[in-house]
Each structure stands twice: as C-alpha cells, then as structure tokens.
C-alpha cells in the first residue's frame, strides 16, 4: 500500500509528513521565505531520496490552496486536517488551539463540534510575535527567555497587531523592562485568542495546543495555561505540534489516488503562478532614469562642517522617535557638524548619552553648545536625562525644518517608523494636521518587519523594489490586511522584488488616501517637502512622486528633520548659554529604571520611574500630573470630571422593597441613567449600578464578546453585565431603542445600531442571561404613553399599575432634565471662568459614553494638564444654531456633534477635538462633516481615535501640535492687527 503524505504550506513555513500504518516515518519543518513552490519541491526531493515510490498526498495550509488548485493535488482545509489528527491521537481532547504564522484557530470538540478561525482583522499570531520581536530588536527565542523572567504584565491592546504596537512602543520608550514587555506581548496574544476566537464559548477541559509558536515559546504556553486556568494534565503540548497539520493532512489522504513521488514533484513544478495578482507599472524604466532621479534629489543636501577642526558655537537637536533616535549638531549657519540616526533598540537614553560623549570627545573643547532642544515621543525623558534647554512639539520641529528647505512650503509629509504626519501650511503657519490613526500604521517599521521576515536587511530589501518588473498591488489598508495580500501574492508566485516595490507603493497610497484622504493630488499643494526615514528609501520616494504626479523636495537629511528642526529651534530660542549636561556630567551618568503602579488615584496607572545618578527622577506612564508627583490640574474647568461625579448622583439610593434592578453603565445608559434611576426608584426598586469600567471589567466579560470588531464601549458592556450578575441583582434592565429622543434639530433621531440593539447580542451570547433576569423592552421614549404600556408589560412580574409607571417615568424625565440643565450650567460656568483666566477652551466632543474614563483614557485630564478648560458636546450644542449639513443628519448623538462644531466655530477661544471610537462606522461619516464645518469657519480640526489603547503619548503629541498651531495662528492674527 502507498504511504500517506501531508504537505502543510503555511504563511511562513512548509511542513511535510510521511505516515505508514499509522506510524510517522518522516517529518520536516522549514521556513520558506516566500519561496513557496521551491521549498515544497526541495522538501519533496528529500522524500524522493529517502523513500521513493507511491504516495497518497494532500496539501493543506493557508498558502497551499493555490498550489493545490494548480497542481491538481488533493486539498484539505487546515483546521479539518488538525481535526483528523486530533481524533486519531488525542481522542479525549475537549478543545484545541492552534496558532500559526498568520492564522489562529480554535476547535471545540466536545459539547458541539465547532471549528473557528480568526477573522480578517485579528493580529495575535506568529507573525505578530515576530513583528513585536523586531520592535524590541531581539529574536523570538530571546523574547521567550525574557518573558519567563517577567515580574509584571502591562495591558497591551490585543485586538490587532498594529494597536498592540502602539501600546508597546511607549513602554519601550519609557524604559520598561524587556522581560515585562515580552510577557505582556504573550498575554496579548492569549487575550486575542480568547476574545477573538472563543466568542462567547468558554475554553475548558482538556486543551491541545498546536502550531509552531505554541511549541517553541514557553512563555506563551505559560500565559495560555495561566489565563485558561488549566491544570497540568489538561494542558497538552504535543511533541509534534509544529507539524501536526501535515500529519492530519497525511491521515486525510487515505483514499486519495496514489501518485509516484516523481509525478507529485512534477505536478508542483508545473504549478506556475497565474495572473490573479494585480500588478502595476515598474518604478523605474531603467538605471538611467534612476540615476537622473538620484541626481535631482542630491541637490537639496545640507553642507557639512568638520567637527574635528571647527571652533565656535553649535546647537544640538534631538528627535527621540518611536523606533529611532536622531541627533544633529549644527553651526549657527546651519552646516552639519555631527549627525546620527539609529534604531533606538528600546534604549534611547543610552544612545543619546553615548553620542553626546562622542561629540564632546571629537570636538576637544573647541565647540560650545549654546542651546539644545528635544522633540519626539521621548521628549520628556531625554530632556530630563541630559537637561536639555527646550522641548518642542514634533510637528512644529518638522515644520521649522521644512521651512529651511523651502520657505514657500505648503505641504509636508513625514513618514517615520511608527507614524505618518502631514501638515498643510497656510500663511506660513500650520493650517491642518493629519496623523495616521493607530489602525493604519503601515509605516516604515512595517517594511522593516517584512524585510526581516524575508531574511534580509531593510536597505537591501527596499533597493530590490526599484527595478521590479511588476510591483504587486497590495491595497491601502492596515498591516494585517497587507500581510494577507502579501501572502496571496506569494502564493501566486510573485517575486521578492515585486513584493518589495508593492510594499513601497502601498505605504504611499496608505498615506495619501487613508491619512490625508486626498481626492486628487492637486489638493496637496505645489511645494511639497517629504521627510522621515522612510522617504530615504528611494522606492517610496519614487512611488510618492508617481502617485502625486509632482516633483517633491526630499532633503538629504530626510530622516533627521525632526532633530534638525529642534536644533533650529534651540538656535532661535538660545539665551547664549545652555543647561545641557557637560562632558564631566556625562562621565558620571547612570540611571535606574523601576516600574510600579501609581496609587495617586483609582486609575492605577503603570508608571516607570527613572532615577538618574544625581538623584533627579523622571516618571512616565502616568495619565495625570499626580502620577508625576505634581499637583494635579484642577478639575474645576473639566466638565468630564463633573459629569463623572454628577451622573451617579441621579441615583438617590433608596433601599427598595420591590427588588434590585441592575443598570449597566455603558453605551446608551450613560445618557439615560437619570431616566431609569428615577423610574425604578419611584416604583420602589433599589437601583444597582455596574462596576466602574476598567480593563479588568472588560476581561471579565471578554468571553461573551461575539464580534471582535465592534467598538470598545460595546465590548466593555459585556463586563458590566457580568459585574451586575455577580452582584446578584434580581434583573438587569437595558431597553432596545431604535429611536433616541427627538431633539428637533435633525432629519431623524436614531440611535446607532449598536446602541439600539446591543441588548439582543448580550442576551444571545451570555449563558447566564435569560428572559427572567434580563429585561430589554423595545421602546420609543418619544411615545410616552406607549412606553409606559411597554414597561408595565416588561415588568409584569412586579404587577405595576400604569398610573404608577407613568408617574415614575415623569420622575425619570425630571431627573434627566435636571441632569442636562446642570451640565449646561456647568458648561457656562467653565466658559466664564476660563475666559476670566484667559485659558483656551476645548470641546472634547464624542458620545455620552465617552465620558467613561476607561474609554477616553483620561484625555480630559491630559487637556487640563495642558492648561485648557474642557467642555463636552452636550454642554454646548444647545447654544448653537441649527445646522443644515451635507450628510443625512439622522442620529441624535451625532446631530449634537455638528451643532457643537457650529458653536466652536463662533467662539474665538473655543476649539473642538473629536473623540472617535475605533470601529464606529458612523464616525466615518460624522468626522468628515465635523471637519468640514470647522474648516469652513477657519478652525482647526483634531480627531482622536480611541480603543483599548492605553497610552496617551500619541494623543499628547496630537494635542500639543494643535495647541502649537493655534498659538501660531494667534500670533499671526495679532501681527496682522498691528
């Protein structure tokens, strides 16, 4: 009888197994570095050597589908393959979890067989771990060793790799221990698997762990076992885990027509790529075209001065970026004395100190630093470490640098390692700022990760793309999507050159269409300066010029522009002497890093304390000033703080006789709590509020989340329900409302689908809920009489008279109206106080539930710490005109946004910042409209996208950029007046 063979072609590896009489004769595990077909042929060649003869063969795996279709070799879906092997070798398993290169799967075996794969927006897989290791500049094996020595776990967003990245980056910059970060990354993968895949089903019993990452990474194993609370005998890690699918595929081949190994190999050899991959034009026709291009860009390089001979003054600029550290020393006439660009390896302080020492050594006392400035993510940290004179907001630094190269610049785009920044310049001031949202960070480090995955350095990798014949079309969305697009291209046999060029092009498209959202290239302006390390990559630069149809300026120091801008700023602001640590100070420089939990308030921020040799300390990770050991900014001018305190006061706290009703404080309940508290208390119920939102609360309900791409407020709701159930309430009340209250300022007054019907999803996916303990009547609060009827019916068990219910609802509305009147009054008070103190006012506009501290992550506190007064949309919209907008104005909460924007437009000292929840589909519509209202009135628009992300670093830069721009335009205004 022929032997059985299984070939598992995954996204990164090829596994082949040979089975005979139920015994495994052979197995192999090889990385394919995108050379799928070649690797398979090579591996099969080995089998030919060793065994020869006939085989019943099947192909499985995500990259194997195309190969199977074109070679005619049988295909078995990989989860199915795993299932076959599980039944053969582990008949008593209850569930299996398999992590692969880019897929994650769960198979539930007992209690209703079910097989699940991750959706298209889910990162926590092998490729994600690789990416994170690249970020930490360690190998995956080192990461695993580190993780085993961890002392604490940081919360890291687990939904998507890109999000996690923006959580990790600040931790690195703040100097958190690699041990702890590594362990936190593994925990994120576990959380992702548990919430993204299990979706309402608990993973219990005997669990099998499969796939490469789970086999090789002990830290990851530990995290799974710990999180799922598995006993030793219930957590099974098979020795053949990495090749498990190929074993399954082999077993599945019984019954497949046997083929001679030579025929199998030649079938695969014949399986050439098809034309299914969309390709574009080459970046350069030939070498001559490339040479001309290089020459043109050479023209904008800065001059150098020799540090070994120069005597005189100098200014130091440092850009402590997310993945790289940049440093430049310039002469007063802007020649470069010294520059440095380096991946910061998670240790920016060490690098700066080292390079500064080098400068002192090279200059031998001839050069005197008259001023220094720091910008970038690590601004505060570096400033504290080397006692720099100034800090400057990144965006402003970049603008200053661009101005140096083209005084008429009207558009700047900077693509760095982690972010894309674009500024439009009007009247020599920043007019609008666009930053990439955490979701679309297809930036520099993205190419780097890919380069490494293909086993080469980034320079070489991107160089390959320059003369690619047919660059692959990879789409312009997020990393995870691009990963699978690359996977498809590989499957179809695209070359590494074509993929490299495709990546460069997609980064450009991502920037233009996703971040800038330009309808046409003309919108960008005529004098474009491009910068950031990513643009040093000629393929990216070329793709940009191609896509925009314009010749742009790329300074030779494109990667150092932030640092250069900082140096220019230091020069501009210099008082003639500098506080920068001198040569002798550096010799004794050392620091110690300790991470701890701040106990300043209930937020319990993870903070890092760096203690320098001279005893000075730098604290990071804190959301508010209290964590930094400073006096917190007053809550007086913060309506979010006011609302947080005021809302629960809508509950009087009467001990009811009828029973205890639980109200989950999330989504619509943030608006309607006063109504329902009033209603139930009047009827003699005790009102129990769910626990305050927190990450822990989210984890509590995570296993019942059905759709992992829903917004964070919705996903948090699951935890609120669990907390109420744990409090033993008699029932939970959460009505379904297609319609919100009609505020008579919009065409219709809907709730969004999630707010309207989330009760249905909660009930369907939580086994603890039933008709008795979860009451969710369909009501329209504009129809009071009908609402009363519906409420009585829903509460029929308590035999409530209509008359009483009507009165109770009246009481609810009375509390509701008082609540809103109080908010408006407080808003007015804040405005007059702020004006008396000469402070700028920000309307932090979102939805009622954005007042939740776990959802807004304390952005209100950040604003007050920046000396601003904070209002909310519901405090001011009523003061505004009615608005007629382009879009169909049909949601109550969103109608408030448009009016709040109208309000801000009319006040000189009021600006609006819009909070947007990731995954909020409606905001794709509202954000453009709010922006358009503000811009029509000459106001800046700032948008902050929030999710589980727990770091405010990016937000802070965004807000400070906005403030700098406001400040700048005021200066111009006042100059114009004179």
């Amino acid at each position, binding site marked *: 009888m022929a032997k059985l063979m299984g070939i598992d072609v995954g996204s990164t590896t090829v596994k082949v197994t040979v089975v005979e009489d139920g015994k495994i004769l052979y197995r192999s595990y090889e990385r394919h570095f995108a050379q799928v077909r070649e690797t398979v042929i090579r591996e099969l060649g080995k089998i030919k050597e060793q065994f020869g003869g006939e085989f019943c063969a099947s192909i499985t795996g995500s990259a194997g589908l195309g190969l199977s279709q074109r070679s005619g070799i049988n295909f078995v879906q*990989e989860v199915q393959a795993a299932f076959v092997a599980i039944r053969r070798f582990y008949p008593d398993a209850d569930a299996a979890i398999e992590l692969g290169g880019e897929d994650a799967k769960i198979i539930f075996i007992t209690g209703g067989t079910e*097989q699940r794969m991750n959706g*298209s927006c889910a990162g926590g897989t092998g490729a994600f771990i690789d990416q994170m290791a690249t970020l930490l500049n360690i190998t995956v094996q080192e990461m695993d060793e580190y993780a085993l020595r961890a002392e604490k776990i940081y919360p890291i967003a687990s939904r998507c790799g890109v999000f996690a990245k923006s959580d990790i980056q600040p931790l690195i910059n703040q100097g958190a221990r690699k041990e702890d970060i590594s362990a936190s990354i593994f925990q994120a993968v576990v959380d992702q698997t548990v919430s993204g895949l299990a979706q309402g089903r608990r993973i219990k019993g005997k669990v099998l762990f499969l796939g490469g990452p789970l086999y090789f990474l002990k830290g990851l194993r530990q995290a799974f076992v710990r999180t799922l609370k598995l006993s030793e005998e219930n957590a099974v890690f098979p020795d053949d885990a990495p090749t498990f699918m190929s074993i399954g595929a082999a077993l599945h081949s019984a019954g497949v027509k046997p083929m001679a190994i030579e025929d199998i190999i030649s079938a695969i050899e014949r399986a050439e790529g098809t034309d299914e991959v969309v390709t574009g034009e080459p970046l350069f026709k030939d070498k001559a075209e490339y040479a001309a291009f290089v020459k043109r860009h050479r023209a904008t390089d800065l001059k150098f001065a020799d540090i070994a001979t120069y005597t005189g003054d100098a200014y130091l600029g440092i850009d402590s970026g997310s993945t790289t550290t940049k440093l430049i020393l310039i002469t007063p006439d802007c020649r470069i004395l010294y520059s440095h660009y380096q991946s910061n390896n998670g240790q920016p302080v060490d690098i700066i100190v080292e390079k500064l020492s080098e400068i002192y050594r090279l200059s031998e006392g001839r050069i005197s630093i008259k001023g220094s400035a720091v910008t970038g993510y690590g601004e505060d940290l570096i400033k504290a470490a080397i006692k720099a004179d100034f800090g400057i907001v990144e965006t402003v630094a970049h603008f200053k640098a661009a101005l140096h190269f083209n005084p008429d610049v009207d558009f700047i785009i900077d693509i760095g390692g982690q972010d894309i920044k674009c500024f439009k310049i009007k009247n020599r001031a920043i007019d609008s700022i666009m930053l990439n949202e955490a979701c679309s960070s297809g930036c520099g480090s993205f190419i780097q990760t890919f380069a490494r995955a293909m086993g080469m350095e980034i320079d070489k990798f991107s160089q390959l793309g320059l003369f690619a014949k047919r660059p692959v079309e990879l789409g312009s969305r997020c990393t995870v999507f691009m990963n699978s697009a690359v996977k498809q291209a590989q499957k179809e046999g695209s070359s590494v050159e074509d993929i490299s060029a495709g990546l460069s092009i997609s980064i450009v498209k991502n920037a233009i269409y996703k971040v800038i959202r330009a309808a046409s290239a003309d919108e960008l302006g005529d004098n474009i300066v491009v910068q950031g390390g990513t643009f040093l990559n000629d393929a990216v630069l070329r793709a940009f010029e191609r896509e925009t149809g314009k010749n742009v300026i790329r300074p030779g120091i494109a990667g150092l522009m932030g640092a250069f801008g900082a140096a220019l700023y230091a020069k501009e602001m210099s008082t003639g002497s500098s506080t920068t640590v001198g040569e002798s100070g550096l010799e004794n420089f050392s620091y110690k890093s300790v991470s701890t939990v701040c106990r300043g308030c209930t937020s319990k921020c993870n903070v890092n304390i760096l203690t320098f040799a001279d005893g000075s300390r730098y604290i990071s990770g804190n959301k508010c000033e209290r964590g930094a050991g400073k006096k917190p900014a007053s809550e007086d001018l913060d309506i979010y703080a006011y609302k947080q305190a005021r809302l629960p006061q809508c509950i009087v706290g009467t001990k009811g006789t009828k029973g205890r009703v639980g109200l989950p404080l999330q989504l619509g309940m943030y608006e309607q709590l006063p109504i329902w508290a009033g209603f139930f208390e009047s009827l003699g119920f005790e009102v129990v509020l769910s626990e305050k939102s927190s990450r822990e609360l989210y984890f509590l309900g995570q296993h019942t989340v059905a759709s992992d791409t829903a917004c964070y407020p919705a996903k948090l709701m699951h935890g609120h329900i669990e907390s109420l159930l744990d409090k033993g309430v008699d029932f939970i009340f959460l009505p379904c409302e297609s319609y919100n209250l009609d505020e*008579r300022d919009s065409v219709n007054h809907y709730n969004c*689908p999630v707010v309207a*019907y989330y009760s249905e999803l909660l009930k369907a996916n939580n086994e603890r809920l039933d008709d008795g303990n979860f009451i969710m009547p369909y009501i329209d609060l504009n129809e009071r009489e009908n609402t009363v009827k519906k409420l009585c019916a829903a509460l029929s068990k308590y035999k409530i008279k209509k008359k009483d219910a009507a009165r109770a609802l009246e009481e609810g509305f009375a509390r509701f109206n008082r609540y809103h009147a109080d908010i408006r009054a407080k808003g007015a008070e804040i405005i007059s106080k702020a004006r008396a103190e000469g402070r700028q006012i920000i309307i932090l506009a979102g939805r009622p539930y954005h007042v939740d501290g776990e959802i807004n992550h304390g952005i209100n506190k950040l604003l007050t710490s920046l000396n601003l007064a904070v209002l909310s949309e519901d405090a001011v919209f009523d003061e505004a005109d*009615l608005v007629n907008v*382009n*879009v169909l104005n049909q949601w109550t909460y969103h109608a408030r946004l448009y009016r709040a924007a109208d309000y801000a437009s009319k006040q000189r000292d009021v600006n609006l910042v819009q909070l947007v929840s990731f995954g909020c589909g409606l905001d794709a519509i509202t954000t453009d409209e709010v922006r358009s209202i503000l811009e029509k009135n000459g106001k800046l628009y700032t948008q902050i996208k929030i999710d589980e992300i727990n770091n405010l670093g990016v937000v802070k830069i965004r807000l400070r950029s906005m403030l700098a721009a406001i400040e700048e335009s005021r200066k111009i205004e006042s100059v114009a007046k004179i």
Partner: protein
Amino acid sequence: MKKTTEQKYTHNYRDDYPRWQSWMKDSYKILIPDMLPWHFAIIERLLKLEGYDIEVLKNDSRAVIDEGLKHVHNDTCYPCLCTVGQYIDALKSGKYDVNRTAVMMSQSGGGCRASNYIPLIRKALKAEFPQVPVLSLNFSGLEKDSSFPIGAKLLLKLAFAVFYGDAIMWCYNQVKPYEAGRGTADKVRGELMDYVMTKYEKGGYARYKKVIRHIVDCFAAVPRTDAKKIKVGIVGEIYVKYSALGNNHLEEFLLSEDCEPVVPVLMDYVLYCVVNNINDGDLYGKKGIFYSVNKLLYKILHRMQKNIIKIFKKSPFEPIHDFEHLRACADKVLNQGVKMGEGWLIPAEMAALAETGTENIVCAQPFGCLPNHIAGKGAIRTLKNLYKNENIVAVDYDPSATRVNQENRIKLMLATAREHISAEA
C-alpha cells in the same frame, strides 16, 4: 432633554449640488450600480419603457475598487465604496456625456449608514464630476429635491420585476448545479429573460401567476442529474449578499466547489422594509396613515407571494420562503424591532434555511457593518442552539480582504458540512 422650542436660526453648511429636474428625463442617461444582474436587467428595461434612459453598470475591474478607495472615506462600508467606484470609473471611461448623465442609488432611510450613501456619493462626485446629479430612490420622503418619482403603477411594475427576477434566480440556482447538459440552465435563463422583457413590452406583465408558472415550467424541463451536492445558503448585508463585485463572485465559487448556492430572494428584503414600518406602529404605537399604507402594501405583496409559493409547491423546486414564516423564524432568535440594515431578516433567513434543509450558510457582510454585529455574528450562538447542525461562517468583505482568506474560511465551513453528511450516512 430640553426641547428647542424657540425658533432657531439654521446655519447652512451644505455645499450646493445639482438637483434632478424632471426635464432631464428626456435627455439624461441614468447610471445605476450592479447588484443583481437579472433583476436589474428587467428593471432597466421597464424603466426604459417608462422613458428613462437607464443603464446598469457592468464595470468590475480593479480600477472600480481603486476609484472607490480614492473617493470615499476608507472606513465607510464596502458597498458604498464599490458603488462610487463603479460610478466614477464609468464617468471617466469616456462612454458617457458627463454633462448629460445622472446616477441613481436607493436610500432606505433606516438607522444604518446606508441611508447616507446619497450624500457620500455627492461628496465623491464633487471633485471631478460636480455637474452630475445624484438621484435617490426612496419611499421615505427623503431628498425631496432629487428623488426618483414613483407612482403607484410604476411601483407595482417594479414589484412584478422583483418577483420575476427572484423566480428566475431561485429556479436557476436549483437547476444549474445539477444540469445534465452543460450550459442548459444558462440558456433557459436567457430565454426566460427575453420572455419577461416581452411581457413588459407587449403587455401581460401583470399576469404574474402565468409568468411565474412559465418560468418554473421551463426550468423544470431542464434535464438534471441526481448528484448529491451541498446546499449553501447566502445571507447577509444586501449588497455583498447579491453582488458578485461585492462578494468576490461567491456564487460562482460555491458552484465550483460542487455546491448548490441557495440565495434567498430580493422580495424578502422588500417585504422586510415594508414590515418594519408596520412593526414600528405595533411596537411604539405610531399608527398613522403611513402605517395603514404599509399594511395594505404588505397585504397585497404577501398575497402575491403566497400564490407564487403555490405554483412552486406543484413544481420539483423548493418553494421560496413564505414571509410570515420568516417573521416567525425571526421571533425565535431576536425581536423584529432590530430593523437597521438587514436587521432581523438575517437571522430569520438563517433559521428558515436551516428548517428547509440548508444548514450550511455563508453570512456575508461588509467589514465593520454595525447592524451585522448584532443580527449576524451576534445571533449565531442562538441559531446554533436552535439548529444543532447549523454550520455558519461569517465572512467580511472589504477592499483589501483577500480572496484566499475568504475562500479558506468558506472551505472550512464546507469541510464541516461534509463531516455532517458523512456522520449522517
């Protein structure tokens, strides 16, 4: 909430846009996006007979998606992106006089984003084709200055067209996988399209029982094998459920995988919209003239549907779902108050399919579709409790979601389906 009782000034932030004027009927071409090729072909013809120069767009190259990506906020749902892409790609093609072309889109007026497609299309066209009017096809009194005028008679004609398109699609899907002679089902479909068109041209379109019977008989006459195939239902957001451009040619893929695609009919969606207006009255006591009109409309359409079902019952084909049965199915899963997007219709169809022998289902949705969180993915657990063998895969469609990813997930669903079959055998 404080009611804005005093008269407030209304600040106009609306950009000007070209309106549809009635005189344009004679000289303008109206482009409509492709969603259901057979239904829309009939509608195209009947509107031409009404004097409108309608054209259903057939462009589906990658350029369509690229234009969509360029002109629509990328977080907007995929159907909007595809539609706008088709419009812009067509307008740029040089095939049309852009000064004498309008585009048309339906608008439900419901609480999901789809009601905003009209303004989004306007915004997208503004940069390059500011002169092109956008027509709204709606029954909610929206876009009064640019809506497509529909009287009772035209409405009825459209309803017949939907029934006929449904019958052709429904029968074809039951014949195609089993046809003995290659291409015979397609040939019959082509002939029947001509037949229906003639009914509109030469009269007789209103004799719907006769027309449907003819459709059913013609398909029943196609010789079929008795091969065993896996029946796979397609439900979900209306555009990606039906449109090959939206769902990467899902029906063709299923056919190539040796399956029988079971695609619930468009009339279900029409009735769903009508019934929602009735439900609003019943749930919230909003019983005005609108309520009564919809009740009447429902009564008429449902009676026709029942007559059509009777015809199907006498044929070898599985009949279309009775809408009252769909409503009863919905009630087992969630409240019919879930009316945004495709709302309760999705679980209703999933349940009805399970009850009529189609347990394997692709639930298609645009990535990030809000109503689908609740009525699609959110309802799967309940459905699995009700129908123990129901085998559902939720697939997201998106400009960058790759086909290999989608097909791999569908293949997993099919593998489970085959397991079920062999377990039963």
